[in-house]
């Protein structure tokens, strides 16, 4: 275990836009940091804040949630509701001093390059913060 620490970022991508955008980036052979672990969800509106908290609890150094642009949601208004929830979570985590651990983006199915850019920016932001501070006190589950 001598390799330097790399941030682990869980990415919740909505099936219709962001996941397709990520897929396009892959098909177009656009390179982006391999630190994200993708979880495909039907809509950004279906992302319960508890999923984001669970990801942080399990040791993720950062979380990205990405959906369709406002107005383009496949389910018409899912991302509008998501936007409100995410604002509250964002400001709450900001108060706690964990502002840059959780990121949100709107990436459409045709924005392969943009997806790569978002992942690059998020990875750098999380890397500069260091490992997840919630890991303190964790000793036994990390068997060698």
């Amino acid at each position: 275990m001598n390799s330097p620490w790399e941030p682990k970022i869980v990415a919740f991508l909505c099936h219709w836009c962001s996941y397709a955008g990520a897929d396009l980036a892959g098909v177009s052979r656009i390179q982006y940091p391999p630190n994200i672990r993708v979880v495909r969800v039907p809509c950004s509106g279906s992302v319960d804040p508890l999923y984001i908290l669970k990801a942080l609890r399990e040791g993720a150094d950062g979380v990205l949630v990405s959906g369709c642009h406002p107005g383009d949601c496949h389910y018409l208004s899912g991302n509008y509701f998501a936007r409100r929830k995410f604002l509250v979570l964002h400001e709450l985590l900001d108060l706690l001093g964990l502002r840059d651990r959780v990121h949100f983006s709107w990436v459409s199915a045709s924005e392969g390059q943009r997806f790569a850019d978002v992942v690059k920016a998020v990875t750098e932001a999380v890397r500069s913060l260091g490992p997840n501070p919630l890991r303190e006190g964790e000793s036994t589950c990390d068997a060698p």
Partner: protein
Amino acid sequence: MTLRDAARKLLEEHKVQGVLGYRKGSLPFRTRPYLFRDPCEIEELVFNPFCGLNLARYLLFLPQEVERVAIVAKGCDGRACVALVRENRLRRENLLILGVPCPGMVDTRKLAEWEGLKEHEVTLRGGEIVVRGVAYPLASFLDASCRRCRYRSPLVYDILVESGEVPSLPQEDTLRELRSLPEEKRWEFFRKELSRCIRCYACRNACPMCYCKECFAESHKPSFLHPSPTLRDNFVFHIGRAMHLAGRCVECGACERACPLRIPIATLFLAVSDTVREHFAFEAGVDVAAPAPFVTYREDDPNAFIR
């Protein structure tokens, strides 16, 4: 009409089958919740600055035979009643809100700094509290949520009890100091406080808006957190609960008063209430008709935080 008169009359005239109020506790400076059923019990009904418990919490735990209940409501308790009615947990016609203007609730733990303090050694005089003959500004003795309270008198009520002089204390921005700290210091503060939590759930159980039959914290499948009171599990519990209370918290501070370890937990919920108020112009329990903030949206909702 005094509070006791109003309550007694309601029971004598069978307008309600019970009055939810406060009664003297078994310790100095403590009161306890009580469901008064008989008019002659009303002699024991009290209301003083040690009535910090949010009685609305009990509205969903009444005996079956109590169909219509009156509740002694401070401003925040009144908001909780309205919020519960809006969420269809209560019928408005089964609820009689006995409003009392509130001077703010004294932080009883602050009084613990005086050894062996007796009840008669503490009196209130306008905007001051006199402890063993020395006067202090009342605001410095109030709970954090009371110092920033916006609705000291219930907005929605059936009967409003006239009380003597209720000092109108200025609203304090109790979160300003915390918000002005740099990021690392804020995390340090929350890391320390969240690590202390033993997950006894007193805060959750004292909250009138936490009435889920199965709390997410006790869910096994799926499991969002473990019973261990480690930092990471405490983080999920409190932030998760704060998200569930977004737009629903009535800022009463009962959670912080209930905590046996004096963790300033209300800070989280008050901050979320501020966010909802600022960005979505919504306050829980103020307007029965206003739509809940998370079942509606605007096309110009804040978007700048999203890439």
